[in-house]
């Protein structure tokens, strides 16, 4: 039990930047993303004993962070601009077309893209994080890629 707690703590401290970026990709606000990672870290530590296998710690914490971010959005949805509408100053660099297209995706499609391409997760890990079965994740990802491709065609 104590070992699990230690493992969760180490994982949190090692990957906190990833969790922050992930949270940020949901809320696009620094203060909110900070709240989310703090809250997520708190919950992960508190529930560390319920972690089934130590090898799951990584995906499990992602799941907690994502749930926390969604919860935050659900609670504050009125206060947020439509995704992609007002990108913060520091986001205006790189492949803006792509960013816009990704930001306009519904949350459940966007998180797939972020996890697969930006967080470099395997499909099986994504399935674990999102608590979906592998084939659902696969088909949803391909559908999303097709959608993005079409979207970018139109934008070009």
């Amino acid at each position, binding site marked *: 039990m104590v070992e699990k707690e230690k493992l969760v703590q180490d994982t949190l401290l090692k990957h906190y930047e990833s969790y922050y970026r992930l949270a940020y990709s949901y809320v696009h606000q620094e203060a909110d993303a900070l709240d989310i990672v703090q809250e997520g870290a708190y919950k992960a530590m508190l529930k560390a004993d319920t972690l089934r296998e130590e090898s799951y710690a990584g995906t499990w914490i992602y799941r907690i962070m994502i749930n926390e971010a969604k919860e935050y959005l659900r609670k504050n949805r009125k206060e947020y601009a439509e995704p992609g509408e007002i990108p913060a100053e520091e986001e205006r660099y790189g492949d803006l077309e792509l960013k816009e297209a990704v930001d306009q995706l519904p949350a459940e499609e966007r998180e797939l893209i972020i996890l697969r391409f930006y967080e470099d997760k395997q499909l099986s890990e994504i399935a674990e994080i999102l608590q979906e079965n592998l084939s659902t994740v696969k088909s949803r990802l391909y559908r999303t890629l097709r959608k993005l*491709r079409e979207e970018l065609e139109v934008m070009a």
Partner: protein
Amino acid sequence: MKDPRDIEERLAEGRKDYQKIPVPEEARARVETGIMRAKAEKEEQIGKGTERGHEKPEKQEAGGKKNMKTNQKKIIIFRIAAAVAAAAAVLVILPNTGAVAAHAMGSIPVVGKLFQAVTFRDYRYESNRFDADVEVPQIVVDDMAEEEEQTSGQEAEKDTAEGQKKEEASDELQGTLEQINFDIEEVTNRLIGEFQASADLGESYGSLEIHHETVTNNDRYFTLKLSIYQGAGSGFESYKFYTIDKKTGKQIQLGDLFQEDSDYNERLSENIKDQMRAKMKEDENSFYWVDYEDVPEWNFERLKDDQNFYFDEAGNIVISFDEYEVAPGYMGASEFTVELEVFEDILK
């Protein structure tokens, strides 16, 4: 102009942009705060668990090093005595009645004692980034037995069995008070110690507030509520409730109120779940972990054996949940009132 790259290639490139999302310096500190808060809370629960195994603090204290602690406790008791003397004059003015008097029924061995929480120690601290405002209460009982006998002499003569019961309850009460006051001292000392340590280090910032309130004081029960607020980044509020059954002189937990083998937990828990659902329906900003499919293991299922509770003036039970216990942090701590009629027939 059309980007010639395939979407997967573009996304793989997009990773670099994503990695450029600046991570504020504060992020690590905030993660650490979350970790510390969870640890502090867990430690407190472990502490609760072990203490409860002992009837009185003396029993866990044998041997040289621990004797010091006993001495400390003696000093505390001595100071309580002084506090009682100081408070007694005020106490007489306050009548010890409550709306739940109807529940008290007939013979109450510990009748005539006045229960009161007095602030026994203050701790304050203020600097640029640290502040503390702590009141450490102790429960004191002023024995009004003599006056009681004068005013209703016949009651004392009712029978000797009752007199003996009364004495037992008195002894029991003495032990209960020592236990509770010792526990309050220990909890507050630990929190003050932690606060002092981080203030001495001077890193980041923090605050500590501890206040107390007598939430129930009727003919049958006395409940002291301790509110603890620990702030560092975002704050964390928690509560501790101490309930004494004046009839037996014992400290009681929720389950002690009900008949053996009764379904009190199911009744109360289901009632609370219904209230949660109703609140969420009523106000879309309310959220409780009930029927929550994303992480089913967070759902509120049933009350803990040592669930915080107290009686309101109408005799309803108020269940108190700490922050994060049944809802996300933004909901704060929450209370649910379960009406008397839900459980009246299974009360002891």
